[in-house]
C-alpha cells in the first residue's frame, strides 16, 4: 500500500527497509529483498476465484462485519513469488547440516510428505463415524505398537502435540497416580541442565521445582539426588541421554531410588535418537517418557512446528493415561472416548482429554512411514550413526575447542563445547555462531545447557555424511584459528547473510508485533 517509487521510477528507499544499498532494488542478484505483504498487497486484489454467491436472506442477526478487516490480498503469481522469495532467506536441512544440539534436525524424507497427503489420511474428519475411519485408527494403533516396542513400555498416549505437551501429559499422569493413592506431593526435581520445558511443565502442574546438581562428569549427581528424595518429592524429571549429550549411567539406580521413595521418574525423551534400538528406556525403569516424533522420527520441523509428542507409560502410570485412545476390537479398531473409558475398569482413572481431537495424525503418518522404512535394524543403525557422527566431531575438534566432558569418555548424539578456548579474545559463543553463518552453516545450539559456560552443543544426526562433517569440522577449525589470530575481525559477523546482526534488545524494549500502516507518513 505504500509506494516505493516516485513517478519517474526512482526509488525513495529500499523496499521493506530504511537503508541504502549498492543496488537500486536492494537485491543482490539471487538474494532478493521482499517487502511486507501489507506494503505489497491491496484490499482490492485477490488470488482465488470463487463461485457466485447465491442470493439468500441472511441469518446473521445484524452482526455482519461492516468495517474493513485490513487484509491485503495478492494474486496467485504474486503470492507464489512473495513466499518463494521469503523462503530463500531461510536456512533448512535441505540446504546443509543443521547441527542444533537437542533438536535432532535430521533429513525429512519426502516419502513421508507424500504419504501424509494421501486423501485417505489427509481428508478425513476427526468426528466421522468410526466405521468410516478404520484405516486411520489402524495406523494410530500400529504406530503405538512401534513406540511401545521401541521403548519397552506397556502403554502409550498418542494425543500430545509436541514434546512439552508430552511432558505435561506425563506429569499429569504422575500427579493423577499420586492423588489416586491419596499421596499429594509438592516437589519435582529437575537437573540444572534440563530443557526449559521441564521446569515450566512441572510448575504448570502445580509443583515446586528444585534443581538437582550435576557431577563433574556432566551427569546427575546420584548421591545428591538420593539425599533429596523424600515423601514430598512427586517426581524426578531426567533427560537421557542428557542435554550435555551424555548417557546417564546410573539411571537404573536412580529409578530404583525414586521408586523406593514413592516417587516417579519422568524421562525427557527428546534425545531418544541416540539410543533407539540400542536401549529400551523401559529396561532402565522410567515411568513416563515423551518422544518427539519431530526429532527422532523425522517429521519436519516446519520452522517451529507442528510436532507430536506421544508419551509411553509404565504399568504404574498406564491407568491414568489421557483420552481418547485407540483400541483393537474383535473386527477392527475403536476410539475410546470419555463414556467408554469411565465405564471401563482399566481406564476409569484416566486424567482426561488433552486436545480437541486425537493428536497429530499428519505426523503419525509421517513417523510410521519413517519407521517402516528403517525397520528395527535401520533404527538401530540410526542411533549408531548418530553417535558415531557426534563422536567424530568431538574427536576432530577437541584439540582446539574446549570440550568440558570429553575426558569422561565418548558422547552420545551430540558434542558439547564451551567457549573457554576464546578466553581473552573478547569473543564468545555468539560471535562464533555468527561466523558459522557466513560459512554457509546453521550454527549449533548456543548457551544451552546452562551448566556449561558459553555452551556450544553440536548435534549432527545420522543423516549427515562424512563429507558434510568434514566440511563443518574444517570450517569450525578455520574460524577458531582465525579468531585466535585476529579477534577484532570477528565481532560483527555475519556479513554475507540477508541481514547483519539484528538488534534484539531494541525489539524487546519497544515491541512492534504487527504491521502498522505508515504510508500516510511516508
Amino acid at each position: 500500500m505504500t509506494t516505493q517509487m516516485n513517478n519517474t521510477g526512482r526509488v525513495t528507499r529500499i523496499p521493506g527497509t530504511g537503508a541504502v544499498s549498492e543496488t537500486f532494488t536492494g537485491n543482490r542478484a539471487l538474494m532478493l529483498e521482499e517487502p511486507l505483504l501489507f506494503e505489497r498487497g491491496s484490499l482490492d486484489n485477490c488470488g482465488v476465484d470463487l463461485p457466485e454467491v447465491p442470493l439468500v436472506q441472511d441469518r446473521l442477526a445484524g452482526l455482519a462485519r461492516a468495517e474493513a478487516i485490513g487484509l491485503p490480498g495478492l494474486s496467485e503469481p504474486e503470492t507464489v513469488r512473495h513466499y518463494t522469495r521469503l523462503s530463500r532467506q531461510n536456512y533448512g536441512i535441505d540446504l546443509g547440516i543443521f547441527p542444533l544440539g537437542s533438536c535432532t534436525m535430521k533429513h525429512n524424507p519426502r516419502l513421508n510428505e507424500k504419504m501424509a497427503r494421501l486423501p485417505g489420511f489427509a481428508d478425513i474428519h476427526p468426528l466421522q463415524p468410526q466405521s468410516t475411519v478404520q484405516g486411520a485408527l489402524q495406523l494410530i494403533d500400529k504406530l503405538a505398537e512401534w513406540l511401545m516396542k521401541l521403548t519397552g513400555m506397556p502403554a502409550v498416549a498418542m494425543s500430545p502435540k509436541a514434546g512439552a505437551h508430552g511432558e505435561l501429559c506425563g506429569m499429569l499422569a504422575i500427579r493423577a497416580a499420586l492423588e489416586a493413592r491419596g499421596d499429594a506431593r509438592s516437589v519435582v526435581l529437575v537437573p540444572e541442565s534440563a530443557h526449559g520445558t521441564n521446569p515450566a511443565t512441572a510448575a504448570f502442574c502445580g509443583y515446586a521445582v528444585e534443581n538437582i546438581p550435576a557431577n563433574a562428569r556432566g551427569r546427575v549427581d546420584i548421591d545428591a539426588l538420593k539425599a533429596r528424595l523424600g515423601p514430598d518429592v512427586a517426581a524426578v524429571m531426567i533427560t537421557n541421554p542428557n542435554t550435555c549429550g551424555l548417557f546417564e549411567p546410573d539411571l537404573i539406580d536412580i529409578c530404583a531410588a525414586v521408586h523406593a521413595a514413592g516417587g516417579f521418574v519422568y524421562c525427557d525423551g527428546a534425545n531418544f535418537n541416540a539410543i533407539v534400538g540400542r536401549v529400551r528406556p523401559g529396561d532402565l525403569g522410567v515411568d513416563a517418557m515423551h518422544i518427539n516424533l519431530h526429532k527422532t522420527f523425522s517429521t519436519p520441523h516446519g520452522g517451529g512446528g507442528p510436532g507430536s509428542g506421544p508419551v509411553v507409560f509404565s504399568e504404574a502410570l498406564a491407568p491414568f493415561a489421557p483420552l481418547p485412545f485407540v483400541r483393537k476390537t474383535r473386527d477392527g479398531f475403536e476410539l475410546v472416548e470419555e463414556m467408554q473409558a469411565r465405564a471401563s475398569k482399566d481406564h476409569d482413572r484416566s486424567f482426561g482429554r488433552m486436545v480437541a481431537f486425537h493428536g497429530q495424525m499428519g505426523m503419525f503418518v509421517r513417523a510410521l512411514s519413517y519407521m517402516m522404512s528403517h525397520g528395527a535394524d535401520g533404527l538401530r543403525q540410526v542411533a549408531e550413526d548418530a553417535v558415531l557422527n557426534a563422536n567424530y566431531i568431538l574427536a576432530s575438534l577437541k584439540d582446539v575447542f574446549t570440550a568440558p566432558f570429553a575426558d569422561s569418555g565418548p558422547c552420545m548424539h551430540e558434542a558439547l563445547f564451551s567457549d573457554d578456548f576464546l578466553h581473552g579474545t573478547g569473543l564468545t559463543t555468539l560471535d562464533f555462531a555468527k561466523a558459522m553463518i557466513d560459512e554457509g552453516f546453521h550454527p549449533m545450539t548456543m548457551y544451552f545447557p546452562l551448566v556449561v559456560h558459553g555452551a556450544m552443543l553440536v548435534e549432527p544426526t545420522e543423516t549427515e555424511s562424512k563429507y558434510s562433517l568434514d566440511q563443518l569440522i574444517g570450517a569450525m577449525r578455520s574460524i577458531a584459528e582465525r579468531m585466535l589470530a585476529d579477534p577484532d575481525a570477528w565481532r560483527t559477523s555475519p556479513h554475507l547473510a540477508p541481514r547483519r546482526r539484528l538488534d534484539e534488545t531494541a525489539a524487546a524494549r519497544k515491541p512492534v508485533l504487527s504491521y502498522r500502516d505508515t504510508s500516510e507518513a511516508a
Partner: protein
Amino acid sequence: MRYLPLTQLDREAMLGVIGAPDIDALFADVPAAARLAKPIAGLPMHCPEMQVERELAVMAGKNLTAGTVPFFVGGGAYKHHVPATVDHIIQRGEFLTAYTPYQPEIAQGTLQVLFEFQTQVARLLGMDVANASMYDGSTAMTEAVFMARRVTRRAKAVVSAGVHPHYVAVLNTLTRFTDDEIITATPDLTPGKPGDDLDALIAGIDAQTSCVVVQNPNIFGHVADLTPLADACHKAGALLIVVVTEVISLGAIKSPGEMGADIVVGEGQSIGNGLNFGGPYLGLFAAREKHVRQMPGRLCGETVDADGKRGFVLTLSTREQHIRREKATSNICTNSGLCALAFSVHLTLLGEIGLRKLAALNHARAVQLAERLGRIPGVELVTTQFFNEFALKLPTEARPVIRKLADRGILGGISLGRLYPGVHALENGLIIAVTETATDADFDALEDALDEVLA
C-alpha cells in the same frame, strides 16, 4: 538404508579418528543389563519405499474420504478448499526443514512470515496483537484462561455452555490439579437460542471471576452479539475470552475484538489447513497490547540490523520457558509454525475480497440447506441465526441416523450424542456444517437420505 549416508568404509575411518575399536565402545555408558545385542524383536526390518507406499495406501484406502462423498461434518474442523499454491509453498525445503528461527540472520523468511501471520490474525480477530501460534484451539483456550488468571489474579473462570465440549474437557483436565475454579454448564437445544444463555452468564459474573469464556459462533452454530457480555465482564474487572472455531466466519460476522473481547483464541484450521483427522491444527491466540507480557507462546517483532535494515526476531522471550523456566507464561516450545504458514498463504490469496466472498458463500449455502432440511417433516431447525453450521432436532436419536447415512456414503454431520454422551436431552440433536465444497448434488443426496432414514 536410503536415509543413512555413511558407508561401511566411512564408519571404519571415523572410528579410527575417534580411537574407538568398534561402535559398541561408544555405548559403553549403557548399563550392561540394558544393552540390546540386536534389533528389537517383533518389528519388521527395513523396507523399500515402494512397499511402504503400498502398505500405507491400503490403510488410507480403508477410510471414507471427505472429498469423495456428500460431506457436512464440522464441530470445530471444517472442510474448505485449499488452493494448490498453499501446499506448494509449505513444501519449500527452506520453510519445511527449518527449525524455530533462533538465528534470525538466516531465518528472515520464517520470521517475516510470522510477523505477517501475527498481523493477519490480529486483524482478523479484531485484536491488537497475536502470537506465532499454539497447538490448536482447545489448548489455546486453556492458555487463555491461565493468562486471565495472571492478569486478573483471580481464579474463577465461567465457561459458557456453548463452548465446544472437547475444549471444555481440555480445560478441565489442565485445571484438575490447580486451584482454578471452572464453572461449566450443559447446553440445551432451545430453538432460536441454542447452546448458551448470555444473560445467565452475565448474571454469573462476580468479583472472583477472572474471565468468561464464550464461543462464537457457538457449538450449535448460533451467532450472538457479545457486546453486553464484554461490558459486564469489564465492569466486574474480568476478562472476556472469545473462542472461534470457524475462522472463515470472521469474513462475515463482527469480530470478537469489535465486540469487546480481551483475549481471542481460535482454531485456524479452516484457513490453509486440511482436516487431517484432527491434527496438526493451528491454535490462534490474540490479545490486547497492554497484556502482551502475559501472553503465552512465541512472538515475532520488528527490529533493525547492524546496517539499519529492517528485520525480524523472536522477542519478549523472557516470558518463555527457555529463559524463564518454571516462571514462564507457558511451557509451550514447538508450536504450529508450518500450519501458520499455510494459513498465511491462504489468507494472502484470499485477501479481504476473497475472504468476504468465501464467507458469504458459506453462509448462503448453509442458509439454503438449513431451509431445505428444516422442511423435512419432523425435523426442526434449532439454530436460526448462524454462519455456516446449524443444529437440527430430529424426531429420533441422531447417532444411529448418522451411522445410517454413513452406510449410504454420506457424512451427514455430528450427532450430539457423540459430543455429549449420556445427555439425553441432546440426543436427538444433529449439527450440520456447510462449506463452499458442498454441491447441489450433495444437498440433494443428504436431503433424500435423511428423508429416507427418518421415514
